[in-house]
């Protein structure tokens, strides 16, 4: 028996394995020793050149799961906060991340970061210095949402969401649900970085702000920022944002409100989906674009008393809806052309469809863009009426 034991031990690989086992582990990150960062906010520091980075860190102990044994009786909302806002300064973002350990007992863990909120002044100076760390480092992930804010980023991160315990998760969900209103332009880091490498297309990012009621402050997204390369230069309001989304083909849901001519009342027409087709034509040295949007929707709500279920009425509504869409798109176009920013990706369509022409103009696209002729054609269909055929009231004959 002993002979075989000695034989086994004498084999060198056993020694090697034992060595490996005894040497300890380096990358071990104990779960309890991590500060899980859910949101990052970037502002300028007081000195102007360095950054003040805020980290929203989830306090796991306070985020009570149902049924877990909690020592203090449930404090409900108001009680202990489920997140901790840590502010740290640094010459660069990475510097600020490491400087955070001067204040935090735990190592910052960035892999679960959901959102990056950037102050508009930083955005105006250029975003690349700020996002390089987020892409280069292996911890942050590329599907984080990027947002700009007119306030201080730390203000946004310290807002409480009405429903979620961790507000960064709430913002992320806001972004994911952009299609419900189709008035939010949601962009993640991957898309933003990709568009930075595009020759002609420019970026847009959503802008998050604060909405105040008497007691509370909440978050709201009402604008979209237009970028030239990585610098913020202009804004789109809600209507223009949706115009942008129509062209990008990202409208999946949402409501278009039309007013009935000749009758009182508004009709909410729901969007079920829209597709956009962009074609470029070159004639007489001029470049023309045509944007065809096809949309399908339903009648969602009416404040009018009339029975709108007849084909003529519905056709009328379809035309009204189309008009609204055209308005939105043209508004977005106008703004974009003012800023000389091709946020729609029209240049790429030209590149695909008319190579030669594109080669001629690609270096000058910024200047050329405002002078492009763009025609918008919209076709809508209303196929469904919800559950009602006509409003539940006695028809009033006028």
């Amino acid at each position, binding site marked *: 028996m002993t002979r075989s034991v000695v034989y086994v031990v004498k084999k060198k690989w056993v020694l090697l394995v034992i060595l*490996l*086992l005894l040497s300890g*582990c380096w*990358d*071990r*990150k*104990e*779960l*309890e020793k*991590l500060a*899980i960062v*859910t949101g990052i906010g970037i502002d300028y520091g007081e000195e102007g050149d360095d950054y003040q980075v805020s980290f929203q860190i*989830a306090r*796991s*102990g306070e*985020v*009570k*799961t149902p049924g*877990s*044994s909690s020592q203090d009786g449930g404090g409900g909302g108001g009680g202990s906060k489920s997140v901790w806002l840590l502010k740290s300064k640094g010459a660069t973002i990475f510097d600020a991340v490491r400087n955070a350990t001067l204040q935090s007992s735990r190592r910052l*863990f960035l*892999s*679960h970061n*959901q959102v990056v909120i950037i102050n508009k002044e930083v955005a105006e100076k250029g975003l690349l210095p700020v996002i390089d760390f987020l892409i280069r480092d292996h*911890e942050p*992930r590329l599907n984080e949402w990027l947002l700009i804010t007119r306030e201080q980023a730390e203000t946004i991160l310290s807002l409480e969401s009405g429903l979620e315990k*961790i507000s960064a*998760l709430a913002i992320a969900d806001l972004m994911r649900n952009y299609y419900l209103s189709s008035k939010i332009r949601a962009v993640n880091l991957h898309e933003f970085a990709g568009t930075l490498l595009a020759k002609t297309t420019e970026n847009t990012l959503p802008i998050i702000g604060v909405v105040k009621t008497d007691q509370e402050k909440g978050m709201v997204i009402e604008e979209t920022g237009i970028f030239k390369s990585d610098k913020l230069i202009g804004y789109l309001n809600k209507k223009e944002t949706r115009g942008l989304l129509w062209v990008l083909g990202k409208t999946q849901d949402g409501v278009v409100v039309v007013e009935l001519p000749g009758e009182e009342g508004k009709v909410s027409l729901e969007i079920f989906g829209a597709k956009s087709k962009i074609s470029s034509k070159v004639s007489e040295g001029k470049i023309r674009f045509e944007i065809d949007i096809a949309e399908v929707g339903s009648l969602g709500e009416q404040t009018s008393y009339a029975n709108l279920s007849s084909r003529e009425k519905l056709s009328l509504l379809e035309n009204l809806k189309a008009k609204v869409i055209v308005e939105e798109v043209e508004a977005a176009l106008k703004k974009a052309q003012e800023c000389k920013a091709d946020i729609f990706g029209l240049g790429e369509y030209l590149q695909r469809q008319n190579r030669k022409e594109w080669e001629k103009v690609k270096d000058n696209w910024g200047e050329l863009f405002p002078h492009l002729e763009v025609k918008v054609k919209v076709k809508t269909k209303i196929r469904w009426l919800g559950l009602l055929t006509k409003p539940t009231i006695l028809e009033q004959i006028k």
Partner: protein
Amino acid sequence: MIRFLLRKFGLAHLRKESPSTPEGKLLHSDLEENLALFREELGNSPDVIIRRFTLNLRNELKSAVLFIDGLIDQQVIYDSILYPLMIEAKKEKWAVKGHLIDFIEDNLLTVGGVDKDDRMPGLVAAVLAGDSVLLVDGCDQALAISTKGWEKRSITEPDTEQTIKGPREGFTENIRTNTAMLRRKIADPGLKFEQMKIGERTRTKVSIAYVKGIVNEKLVEEVRRRLKRINTDMVLDANYLSEFISDAPFSPFPTVAFTERPDVTAAKLLEGRVAIFVDGTPVVNTAPTLFIESFQNPDDYNFHFLFATMIRWIRYLAFFLGILLPAFFVALTTYHQELIPTPLLISMAAAMEGVPFPIVIEVVAMGAVFEILREAGVRLARPIGQTISIVGALVIGQATVAAGLVAAPTVIVIALTAIASFVVPTQQEIGIILRLGLTFLAGILGAYGILVGLLLTLIHLTSLRSFGVPYLSPVIPLSIEDQKDVIVRTPLWAMWTRPRSIGWPRPIRQGFGQSPTSPEETAGKDWSRPDDKKG
């Protein structure tokens, strides 16, 4: 001389059935001297019975029957030995021709097995095996008469291999009963048994069984060879043999399989394998063994093939879960927290808040506690055993979590692993070793460590052979047609070939294309109504 040298170097082989004691003494012609010889060998044990009587052949001859009480069937001795010799012999008294012993053997003993011998070692061995020895005064030869009979366990269902829809027979400790059960399953004359006795002191009867014509003769030869070279004191159990003949003694993977069921044994023999019966244990060894066999259960063939296929897959899943779950849990929570979805991570972090030990330690410790509980439950007598498991689980699990010693996710993981590891019973031995090894590796290097561990295991498995057959057949080397019992359990009418790697001497076992169909004549006819016109 040669025997002396062989003895000196401890290399005496087991040849025939004689022990390596000094040359057998010859019998004397005198009864009393012979009996003295026996008493010298067997001592004065109270179970050695010497029944003296007078044999009335030619003359009044003093005779004796010597046997060991408890090993013999008394009825046989009374009816077939004593009665004919004491009563019937009188009628033949003067008809004796030739040698007396031969006459007795030919005409008087109405028993199945009779052997003539004149050397002590053979006769003593026979007595110890349950035969009776007949000594007649004046003859220097004796007869060893087969009178075996002892208390046996009746045929019951084996505890460890239970089926829901299959036969409930299991092997017993008597090798003859077992071989008989096998004969009833395989009525083919090709079923052959080869018997040998292994174990110096236990002289255990070991039988190799195979179906000639289906099995590869080289395999039988190899099994024979390996069994013959065993030189040991005792063979008390099937495992004693399997450890001596296995291909890779240090590997945790079994290259010799066990079963207690005759239907399973029969099926394996008909695939071209060899079975090894060991007297004294209901467990039968089969060789060669493939990795895939541990996932095959006789019940698979008793259920609908779709269900059986699903269950197979659940078994594969359970096996991998049982090995990998704790290791992955450790790896993910210690090294790769980025791979856990955010809400889950936050809840887990909440659950693990305040736990003092690193997760590796916890997982290993809880695993050890679980093994202790399991072992205790097995060793204790039934009623207490069940209480222990319940008490253990509830108290230990609940209390440690509440006290903050162990986190709830850890307990869940260990419990899941434990249950998963019971699904494939054969793999329990392997499972524990692999699980432990992988958990350690995961604790050191995270997922990379798991990969290294899995790679090493895989390499070991692919290099393993069981009696010449690659261990991972039919997956590696890939045999598409053999997948019919690996990935899925195809309907029985579709399993028309034997496994390629083992049954290749006679690959076809049933007719091809026997999927049941309705007879053509019934097309359009409704057989549920009587055929008369008035119907």
